């Protein structure tokens, strides 16, 4: 915090808000100190693997999986919708890539619940964390013709999730 204060003070000088004022000027001067506490949310417990397991491609129902992670937010900052980067293989939808045949993909989608509306209580150890659930879904039309995974093969993707603000 001291560093931040100093940084903002430095910024004031750069901006010239106090142009002409010398820090070595004689006499009495008042210097205003201020600091801004950023309203932000951070992930405090990362999610485990969103594992759809072994999918039977002859199925006719959505295949689903879910996983949770925890966030904390600045005191009185209310979380807004989580976002993500679409993952490493996005094309029209998020896609997992086959480990043995890198031209084969398995599309999927994810949604977030509990991501918005959490009023933060700060980041101290005693401050309550909040669980966000990641719900994954693969439609029959997405998996029915997917290339089989032989022993040791897997479809996978890595998505970078951002909690906001």
């Amino acid at each position, binding site marked *: 915090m*001291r560093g931040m204060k*100093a*940084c*903002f*003070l*430095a*910024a004031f*000088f*750069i901006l010239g808000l106090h142009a002409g004022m010398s*820090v070595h000027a004689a006499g009495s001067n008042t*210097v205003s*100190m201020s600091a*801004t506490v*950023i309203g*932000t*949310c*951070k*992930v405090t417990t*990362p999610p485990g*693997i*969103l*594992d*759809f*397991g*072994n*999918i*039977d*491609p*002859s199925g006719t129902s959505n*295949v689903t999986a879910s*996983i949770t*992670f925890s966030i904390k937010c600045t005191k009185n900052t209310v979380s807004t919708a989580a976002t993500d980067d679409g993952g490493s293989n996005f094309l029209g939808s*998020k896609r*997992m890539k086959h480990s043995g045949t890198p031209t084969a993909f*398995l599309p*999927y989608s*994810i949604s977030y619940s509990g991501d918005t509306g959490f009023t933060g209580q700060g980041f101290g150890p005693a401050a309550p964390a909040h669980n966000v659930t*990641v719900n*994954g879904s693969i439609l029959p039309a997405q*998996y*029915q*013709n*997917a*290339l*089989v*995974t*032989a022993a040791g*093969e*897997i*479809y*996978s*993707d*890595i*998505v*970078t*999730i*951002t*909690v*906001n*603000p």
Partner: protein
Amino acid sequence: MKAALKQSRVSMLICAAVSAGLLVSNGVQAGGTTPLTVNAKISGTCKVTTAPGTLDFGTIDPSSGVNATASTTLVMKCSNGTTSTAATDNNGAFFSVTKRMQHSVTTTSFLPYAIVYVNDAGFAGAGFAAAAPSQTITINGTITPAQFAPALITTGAQLYADTVTITVNP
């Protein structure tokens, strides 16, 4: 105060590069991020998509000297990348040395028979979507004269019947 000002001068040097950016962004930073790993596997399997009809040997003349035969078909699809292997079955409900049909009234009477599968193995699956290609498997049934010659007659609505559970593989 003097100490604070001194610190601010030092900070001014340290933060010179970053303070402009801080001022531009007005102190707003992006929220935290976390990586999420997503995994799945697709099983290699074949499934019957159209069940067979009844394998009906019809009315057999027990005095005949030739095999009585009958055929029916089923349709299957397999996972994309999976090649079918031989179909198997549970031998039906009355197996004893051979598959057997049971007389509907005289339940101690049986009519032995055999079945073989054609085009069950070697089909390269392309998945299960509606447009994915499928494979027709033919079930050929045979009853030899030695099997039907001594069989108890069926009268009226009587018949011999069995139910076999077929498995397409893998």
